[in-house]
């Protein structure tokens, strides 16, 4: 357990030591900030602006998560530190879980400033903010966290399978985009209703919009939790399979 916390701390500090993480932070805040400004300006209701904000965050995840996760294992493999790490008395699973927790923590810290946007709106237009229920906002962020964990786990798996960071990032990005665009263009996906249904079920954008409308769906919870566990399990197996 102690080694998990040590490794988690190391992962988090490695992110803060790398310039790419700061570029990602800036990108994220710029896109969500501009997006939210535009949404508030165009919408009379704050609830739909928050819904929109969730989709903007999901769009950012598409870029941010592959880049944050690509280095986790690929870099260690390439520089050889993988060998020193795994010949220390630590279990493979605690290495994988610590890296997962590290990236997830970093991402949640990245998301935290978006909560300030809501405070700013309350300051500027108290009446508009009065209509906003905290429940849907909380639900929205919960689903953001769930989606992030599933795709961080996916990114770790991709990174564990290769020593090339670019390949890891592109494969994570590809899988995420299929889900992203599949959900976004669900009505135009296919004439076959079954394909459209599957697209709708998997659509993270729809899950986020529903959660931000105040609907708590346990199917969403189960989907992302099981995806996270599946990908983490795969990553542990991939790390063990170096043999």
């Amino acid at each position, binding site marked *: 357990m102690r*080694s998990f916390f040590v*490794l988690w701390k190391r992962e988090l500090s490695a992110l803060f030591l790398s310039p790419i993480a700061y570029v990602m932070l800036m990108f994220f805040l710029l896109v969500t900030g501009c997006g939210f400004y535009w949404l508030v300006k165009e919408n009379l209701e704050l609830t739909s602006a928050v819904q929109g904000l969730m989709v903007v965050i999901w769009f950012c995840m598409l870029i941010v998560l592959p880049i944050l996760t690509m280095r986790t294992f690929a870099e260690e493999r390439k520089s050889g530190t993988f060998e020193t790490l795994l*010949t*220390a008395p*630590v279990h493979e699973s605690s290495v994988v879980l610590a890296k997962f927790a590290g990236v997830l923590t970093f991402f949640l810290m990245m998301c935290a400033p978006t909560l300030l946007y809501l405070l700013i709106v309350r300051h500027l237009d108290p009446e508009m903010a009065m209509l906003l229920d905290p429940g849907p906002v909380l639900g929205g962020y919960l689903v953001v966290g769930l989606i992030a964990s599933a795709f961080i786990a996916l990114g770790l798996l991709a990174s564990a399978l290769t020593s090339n960071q670019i390949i890891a990032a592109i494969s994570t990005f590809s899988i995420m985009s299929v889900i992203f665009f599949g959900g976004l263009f669900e009505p135009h996906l296919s004439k076959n209703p079954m394909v459209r249904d599957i697209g709708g079920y998997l659509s993270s954008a729809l899950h986020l919009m529903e959660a931000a409308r105040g609907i708590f769906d346990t199917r969403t919870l189960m989907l992302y939790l099981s995806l996270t566990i599946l990908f983490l399990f795969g990553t542990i197996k991939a790390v063990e399979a170096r043999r």
Partner: protein
Amino acid sequence: MIKVQNLTKKFSGHTAVNDISFEVKRGEIIGFLGPNGAGKTTTMRMLTGFLHPTRGSVEIAGTDVFEHPLEARRHIGYMPESCPLYLDMRVDEYLTFRAQIKGVPRRALKARRNAVKEQCGLTDTGRRIIGQLSKGYKQRVGLADSLLHDPDLLILDEPTAGLDPNQIREVRELIRQLAERHTLLLSTHILPEAEMACQRIMIINQGRLVASDTTESLQKRLLGDALIVADILGSPSEITEGLNGLSGVDGVESEALEEGWNQYRIDSASPNVRSQIFDCAVSKGWKLRELHLESRSLEDIFVAITHGDSHTEATR
């Protein structure tokens, strides 16, 4: 300390390590020799449990490495070949991190860290960023890391690779100090290094263990005969004939030196033939200005064993 049985590792059709068995006792210093691509690194990776063997077993301090990997790793301090480190960390940060994941108790941590820093000559470099250190200092950080949890067994994969002569001397000195307290297994393809530091030499070639003995007995066994060099003034044919006539001389080769001097290289079963050579020179009135026993180095042994296998690297 180490017990290896029938260790074999195959990589997709290519056998890197082929049926190796050996034992190392506590306190021994073993030099692991072999040409590039012979399987040294693969064997060491299996000893540390980083790679799983295709067949065979490894026991470290009585613990099976593949059944109880964490327990076995606590006994091992390992420094991989290129000495990989986290280049973005400071020396102190890195050593603290490594000590923590190696389970050094929180209270002993700082003392332990300072002890290995002193041992490896890193006392003034604690605040430096590892990426900015020279290769020799990085090697020291790697070595300090492998010592942090005070392991019984140190496995060092080419600890002096890529260092300049001064740094090599420093690292060797360090290894000599470590040898007093730890069991040491170090791989190298630099022979004088093994010859100087190690009590026992294991030579591996094309994935097989071809020799495992002390340096002296390896010399005796593999090169056997003594080689005696004598500088004598006079007619070479007469002298060669005379030397060949001595009992115990197996063969003589001559080489002309300046002003009528010749150097004779005499193959003999025993070094004691020297006194007979002297007597012979005196009785026949030859002028003798040099007579010595040529010591054969590990290099000769190495060449004798691995000779003609230069294609090993290509098949890797």
